């Protein structure tokens, strides 16, 4: 007898009654399932959120952009000692490096040097805000997309003359200057005054973080503010996405020559594209997933064994019912399917509860941080399939036991 819709519905009904008849026992039975599925859903939803964050935040830089930094911060994850060593010993990157690369690289369209300080107090009249202040050379508008609301960008002339001028982000304008006219207004950074020459158009929020809280000043003026020792990072736009690898290789070679590195020496700088960052993230998240799968497997295995135990008890409790069903003509297959459907249903109840809790956890974490969470339909599908399979696999032994009961013995049992 195949599992007709009726048999399935009957099994679901019986499982529902078993659930509501003994809530504590059901909860304990399904704990393994609940915890397992909960962890998967919560972790996968958050990983998906970080993934989305990486893609929008990192990839928004543009896909044919790459950056030369003094140190590779992601190395801290892989080899912390080496990372510390590099922080201590790698030479500073300078504007001169950027100029040299701009002149020598074949596949580079734009090269821009940039230094930045976070959480710098910027004030005008009695108001102040803490924002990022970046020192840029004149090439930054070609490397980062910053449309203007009014005025102009910081130019090559400003840069050459170390002019005390600033381009302010939309939020900075709103907080310090609005509704007054921006151009000609003066803001104070540290103990220096800067004339506002332009306001960037509102770029809005990405994943809860404003992209309008910044001030851009010429790199020379930045140096005067924060001292000459800060390393710059060099952003390079390849002339074509297909030349990205070639451009990165070219830049690496040029930097090695500039730093006088021998053929066996390691790079004392870091070249990375947003694609590489994403790849690194992918390998990190793969690692997390692998660990997760291992942990969840154990949890589900325990859950399956407990489920099997509960089903054995359920079969024993209903021995007479099985005897009666056999007496009125139920073949072994029908009894078997009845109990299989029941155990699969129980298992799915646990899975659904786990999903609900898992998504709640993800939603709470998401609400308390900038990370979004992502409902991954594939994971929901896999979780359901896994719980059904678990119910069927661990329900097989109890179901077989029920199917093979001798009707005479079963009817006689108390």
């Amino acid at each position, binding site marked *: *007898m195949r599992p007709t819709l*009726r048999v399935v519905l009957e099994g679901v009904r*019986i499982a529902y*009654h078993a659930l509501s008849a003994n809530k504590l026992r059901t909860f304990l039975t399904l704990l393994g399932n609940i915890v397992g599925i909960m962890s998967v859903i919560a972790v996968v939803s958050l990983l998906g959120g970080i993934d989305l964050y990486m893609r929008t935040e990192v990839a928004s830089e543009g896909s044919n952009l790459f950056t030369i930094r003094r140190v590779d911060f992601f190395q801290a994850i892989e080899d912390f000692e080496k990372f510390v060593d590099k922080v201590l010993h790698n030479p500073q990157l300078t504007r001169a490096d950027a100029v040299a690369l701009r002149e020598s690289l074949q596949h580079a369209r734009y090269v821009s040097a940039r230094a930045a300080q976070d959480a710098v107090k910027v004030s005008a009249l009695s108001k102040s805000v803490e924002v990022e202040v970046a020192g840029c050379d004149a090439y930054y508008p070609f490397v980062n997309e910053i449309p203007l609301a009014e005025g102009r960008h910081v130019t090559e002339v400003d840069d050459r003359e170390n002019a005390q001028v600033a381009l302010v982000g939309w939020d900075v304008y709103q907080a310090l200057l609005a509704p007054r006219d921006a151009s000609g207004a003066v803001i104070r950074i540290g103990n220096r005054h800067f004339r506002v020459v332009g306001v960037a158009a509102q770029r809005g929020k990405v994943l809860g973080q404003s992209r309008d809280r910044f001030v851009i000043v010429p790199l020379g003026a930045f140096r005067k503010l924060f001292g000459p020792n800060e390393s710059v990072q060099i952003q390079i736009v390849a002339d074509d996405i297909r030349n990205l690898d070639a451009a990165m290789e070219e830049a690496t070679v040029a930097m090695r020559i500039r730093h006088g590195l021998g053929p066996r020496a390691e790079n004392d700088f870091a070249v990375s594209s947003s694609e590489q960052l994403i790849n690194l993230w992918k390998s990190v998240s793969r690692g997390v997933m692998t660990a997760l799968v291992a942990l969840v497997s154990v949890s589900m295995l325990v859950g399956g064994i407990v489920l099997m135990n509960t089903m054995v008890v359920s079969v024993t409790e209903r021995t*007479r*019912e099985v*005897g*009666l*069903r*056999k*007496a*009125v*003509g*139920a*073949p*072994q*297959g*029908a009894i078997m399917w009845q109990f299989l459907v029941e155990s699969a249903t129980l298992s799915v109840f646990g899975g659904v509860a786990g999903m609900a809790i898992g998504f709640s956890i993800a939603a709470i974490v998401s609400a308390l941080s900038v990370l979004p969470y992502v409902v991954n339909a594939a994971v929901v599908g896999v979780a359901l399939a896994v719980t059904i399979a678990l119910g069927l696999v661990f329900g097989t032994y109890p179901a077989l036991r029920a199917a093979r009961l001798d*009707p*005479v013995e079963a*009817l006689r049992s108390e």
Partner: protein
Amino acid sequence: MLIEMRGIAKRYQMGSHVVNALDGVDLDVDRNEYLALMGPSGSGKTTFMNIIGCLDSPTEGRYVLNGEDVTSMSDDTLAHIRNKEIGFVFQTFNLLPRASAFQNVELPLIYAGLDAGTRRERAAAALEAVGLQDRAHHKPNELSGGQRQRVAIARALVNRPSIILADEPTGNLDSKSGAEIMKLFEELHARGNTLIVVTHDDAVAAHARREVRLRDGRIEVDRRRDPIPA
């Protein structure tokens, strides 16, 4: 002939010795007979009933039920025969506690593989035959003992079996409900059903038209008689 049994024996190995629960029984039962199967405990009565009801197979002999040799069939084939040929009535009713009267009556039809419409029609008719059409949606715990047994009888009737096999059908009932059940059996017999009632109660057996008595695994008495006047 509905039942033809020749040399039916059932032997159990109990440690070192063999117990002859049934020891060479011959029995013929015709359509529309009303037979009481009696005997003291240990007489082999229950074993015999299980074999008649195709719940158990004999170790020896030959059993032809409604023209089919059921002596050594597989479990699933026997289940199919029980579904088609036998309607069981138990002392303890054996209703599914969480299912309504209607759903209990419908159960054999599900295993017969009938469609929902036919099942509904037949289950309703069977409940009407036992006078419980207005109790169809009650659960067993909402019914009296007599009503529960009548639901069980409706379940036994619903698949139009060749034999209704009742095991101490009044054993768990008060005398008034018991009398109602025996009256219902009279009606079923009058409508052409074949009844085999297993009992140790002479008053129950007195309704039957034929009495078969077992002792030590053999038939001791097999006689036909007139029923007591109602």
